[in-house]
C-alpha cells in the first residue's frame, strides 16, 4: 500500500500531508504537523492525553484514522492560542496548580473546553463526568476539577467563551 496525500483543516489552517496507510490523526498531528500538545499516553483510548476537538466535539486522535477526518475542523490545544493570549481556562489551570508533570494537561484542557462549550455552568458532578475519560497520575483530580469550576465561574462573570 502506498502513502497518500490528504488534506486536513487544523487550527484554522488547511494542511496537506502525506500519510502512511492507516496513519492515525495523532500520528499526523504529532509527527507531520508537530502539534506536540497532542500526547500519546496509551494509544488505546484509555488515557485521554491525545484528546482533540473534531468539529467542536471531543475525540481521541489515537483511535481516529486520519483519512476518515475529511472536511472536519480539528482543534488541538495549540489552536486555543493562535493570538498568543492565554485563555481563561488555561489561566484557571495555572492558578489552581492543576498540573504537575503536565503530560495529561492538554487533554484535560480540551475535555474541559468541550464540556464548557456545551454546558457553561456545569455542576461539580458534571465536571467529573466530563473529565472522566482523562487520566492524571500526579496532582490528583481535585485541583483540575477546581480549575474547571473557576473557569466556569470566570466565564459566567465576564460572559466570555471558554477559549
Amino acid at each position, binding site marked *: 500500500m502506498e502513502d497518500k496525500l490528504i488534506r486536513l483543516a487544523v487550527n484554522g489552517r488547511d494542511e496537506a500531508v502525506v500519510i502512511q496507510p*492507516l496513519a*492515525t490523526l495523532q500520528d499526523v498531528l504529532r509527527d507531520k504537523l508537530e502539534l506536540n500538545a497532542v500526547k500519546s499516553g496509551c494509544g488505546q483510548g484509555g488515557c485521554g492525553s491525545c484528546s482533540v476537538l473534531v468539529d467542536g466535539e471531543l*475525540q*481521541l486522535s489515537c483511535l*481516529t484514522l486520519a483519512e*476518515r477526518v475529511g472536511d472536519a475542523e480539528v482543534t488541538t490545544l495549540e489552536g486555543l492560542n493562535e493570538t498568543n493570549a492565554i485563555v481563561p481556562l488555561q489561566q484557571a489551570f495555572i492558578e489552581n496548580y492543576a498540573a504537575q508533570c503536565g503530560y495529561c494537561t492538554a487533554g484535560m484542557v480540551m*475535555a474541559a473546553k468541550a464540556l464548557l462549550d456545551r454546558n457553561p455552568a456545569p455542576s461539580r458532578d458534571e465536571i467529573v463526568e466530563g473529565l472522566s*475519560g482523562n487520566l492524571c497520575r500526579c496532582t490528583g483530580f481535585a485541583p483540575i476539577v477546581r480549575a474547571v469550576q473557576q473557569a466556569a465561574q470566570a466565564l459566567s462573570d465576564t460572559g466570555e467563551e471558554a477559549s
Partner: protein
Amino acid sequence: MPELLRPGSIDEAADLIARHGAAAAVLAGGTSLMRETYPSDGGYLIGVDRLGLDRVVARDGGWSVGAAVSLSVLREAVPIAALQAATREIGGPAVQNMATVGGNLFARAPFGDLAPALLALGAQLVFATADGETTQPIEDFYAGWADGAPPSTGLLTRIELDAPSGDCAYLKCARRRYSTPSVVTVAASVQKDGGTVTDARIALSGAHAQPTRCAAAEQAVIGSSLDEAAIAAAASATEGAVEPRTDAVASDWYRRRMTGVFVGRALAALA
C-alpha cells in the same frame, strides 16, 4: 497491514463483507478495533462511515437507530432513561462521541454495556447481507456467538427499538464510576398488571461468554408482586444460573455474587 476500504453504499459494504469473510473487520467508531495491533499483512478494514447509518429516525411507537449512530447521539435522540444511563457509563465523553451503537454490540468482554439494555428493551437487529435484509431479535444474535466470536451475519445496519411499555432499570457494577470496564452489567424491564408482574426481561453481561437474558431470574418474578421475597428469589436464581469468567477486572466468584446483588437492586428499583 490491512487495507482500508470505504464503501459508498450498504449493498457494496454487504458484498465486501460476504467476499472477504473472516479477513475483513468492520470499522465503525474505532474505539475497539483501533486498539488492536493490526496483522502485518493482509486483511481489510471496511469503514462504515459513508453509508448514512449515523441517523436516528423516530417512527410510530419507536425508533430506528442507525448502527453507526454514536452513543452521544443515541443519548440525545432516544429518551429511554435506562438506555441513556448505559451510554453514560461506556468510556468517557470522547469515547461516547466516537463509539457506535452497532460497534458496541460486537465489543468483547469486559466491554459492551449497551447489550443488556437493548436485550431488556427487546431490540431487533437488522442486517444487510449479500442476499438481502434479515431481522432477528437481539437475543438470537448473541445465541449465535461461538468461542467469543460473532456469527457471520452480514452488516448490522440498524437497531429497531419500540418505546417500552413497562419500566426499565439499568445498573453497571464497576471498579469506578465512569470510563471503566464492567464487572457485571444488569438491565431489567417488567410489565405489570395491577401489582402483578406479567412479563419480565432481565439481561446480563459479564455473566456468560456473551450478553444474555436470564430466564431463571425472569421466572422468579413473573406472577409475583415484585415483593422482597420475589426479588431475593430472582437474585438467588441468577447466581445459580450464571457462568462468569475471571479476568483482570474481576474473579468469577465476585462476578457471580455481583450478578445477584445487581439483579436484586435493579428489580428493587422497579418495585
